């Protein structure tokens, strides 16, 4: 039954998200062909155009990311708690199967969104000019970023694998935060969508505070190290070490939060939620 639910959940998400991400990649290609691919940033005017094109591009990828999670949220709400819920809840499947199917489909598209965002950033940024500069100064760039010492043998596939795991866990956590918010919103007697939005901001605020405290405890929250690229003690600031610490901790937190919210959502769906 899970396979059948997943088939229809994926079909429903694909309908919108394939179009959205095709637009994202086409925008990236357009910016690459007409802007970044033609500019060498060797004078102020071209630098300004480059800056504006990046600004435009950031808007596009933000919209794609936001749109992805909106589509995932709408699918969950509409399929389970609008009029459609009267069919969904009377299919011969457990509520746990519904939640799992939507979590898997949402996580797949959340991860694909991050992969495609990465790909589009590569399309925009990796112009022949940038790649030439990179290859000409590869050793200095890698040293400056901190690919030295224990990080010297950090290969590209290893970084990609780490980023993939990070993306999957973050997508899972983001989806389940949305689902938990929708389900918490259903506990309100009226204005259930507003209730879901309030729940989402409440959960996000709590997670942000927890995240900040964890980063502070581990000494990863001081921004001046990043600004001056030097630590207070005058030791060289290692960007790779810093990012590995921040991303590692974020992954762990996202996983813990995701598991807690999944259990909460499952319990509420099974014991508390009534269709309107």
């Amino acid at each position, binding site marked *: 039954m899970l396979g059948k639910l997943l*088939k229809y959940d994926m079909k429903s998400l694909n309908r919108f998200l394939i179009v959205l991400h095709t637009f994202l990649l086409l925008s990236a290609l357009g910016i690459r062909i007409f802007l970044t691919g033609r500019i060498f940033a060797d004078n102020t005017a071209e630098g300004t155009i480059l800056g504006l094109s990046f600004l435009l591009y950031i808007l596009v990828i933000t919209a794609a990311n936001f749109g992805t999670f909106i589509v995932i949220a709408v699918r969950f709400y509409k399929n389970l708690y609008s009029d459609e819920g009267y069919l969904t809840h009377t*299919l011969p499947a457990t509520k746990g199967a519904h939640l799992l199917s939507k979590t898997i489909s949402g996580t797949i598209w959340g991860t694909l969104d991050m992969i495609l965002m990465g790909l589009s950033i590569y399309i925009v940024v990796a112009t022949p000019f940038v790649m030439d500069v990179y290859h000409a100064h590869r050793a200095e760039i890698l040293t400056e970023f901190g690919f030295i010492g224990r990080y010297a043998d950090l290969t590209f596939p290893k970084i990609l694998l780490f980023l993939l795991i990070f993306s999957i866990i973050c997508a899972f956590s983001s989806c389940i935060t949305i689902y938990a918010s929708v389900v918490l919103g259903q506990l309100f007697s009226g204005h259930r969508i507003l209730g879901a939005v309030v729940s989402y901001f409440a959960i996000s605020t709590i997670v942000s505070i927890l995240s900040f405290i964890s980063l502070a405890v581990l000494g990863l929250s001081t921004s001046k190290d990043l600004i001056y690229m030097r630590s207070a003690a005058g030791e060289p600031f290692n960007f790779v070490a810093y990012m590995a610490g921040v991303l590692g901790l974020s992954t762990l937190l996202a996983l813990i939060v995701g598991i807690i919210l999944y259990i909460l959502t499952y319990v509420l769906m099974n014991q508390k939620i009534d269709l309107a």
Partner: protein
Amino acid sequence: MKPILECQGLSKRYSSSFYALNNLNLALEKGQIVGLLGPNGSGKTTLIKLINDCLHPTQGTILIDGMEPGVATKKLISYLPERTCLDLSMKVKDVIAYYADFYENFVTERAYQMLQDLEINPNARLKSLSKGTKEKVQLILIMSRDAKLYILDEPIGGVDPAARDYILHTILNNYNEEATILLSTHLIQDIENILDRVVFIRQGQVVLNQTVDEIRTQHGKSVDSLFREVFRC
């Protein structure tokens, strides 16, 4: 014989003081067409939603063919809600495939035959259909299942009298003698002739549970007349 539906001490409270169902007791045997009748707000739809696991009871138990509502009972019940529950972006043929995918007892050929009878295009998108036609499609989907218990909440409310006749004819022709139909409606005159039993419900409690023959012989009235008398405002 084990009843197909049994409710014991069933209550559903929506707010601290409002009970939609209040200690309701009901048992229905297999193989009958039962009219669930009552004025607006009497608890008919709440009872139907509870049987279909769309609500959680505040108190009491529901047994469908001896089982509590869950995956097994959803295989036995074919439920027509009072509202359109289909994904309107789908085509009629896609919804048929959807039902065939999820319900083992769905008979695809029967669904296509009924579509043909009602001249509904399988390639049409649901959102392009009129309200009445959408209701017909929903009813076709429900009646194309070989279920043990059909629960129809206001199945003829939104369609014209001609289609109403076809729908009632469809209901009669497409359920087997072993199955039970629980039908909720305000249009008593239209369905009176097909009912075997009538359950009157008021303020969340059963006030009458008799066969149509018993009503005619004991009260000397039609179901419609008795309804008007019992629920006179």
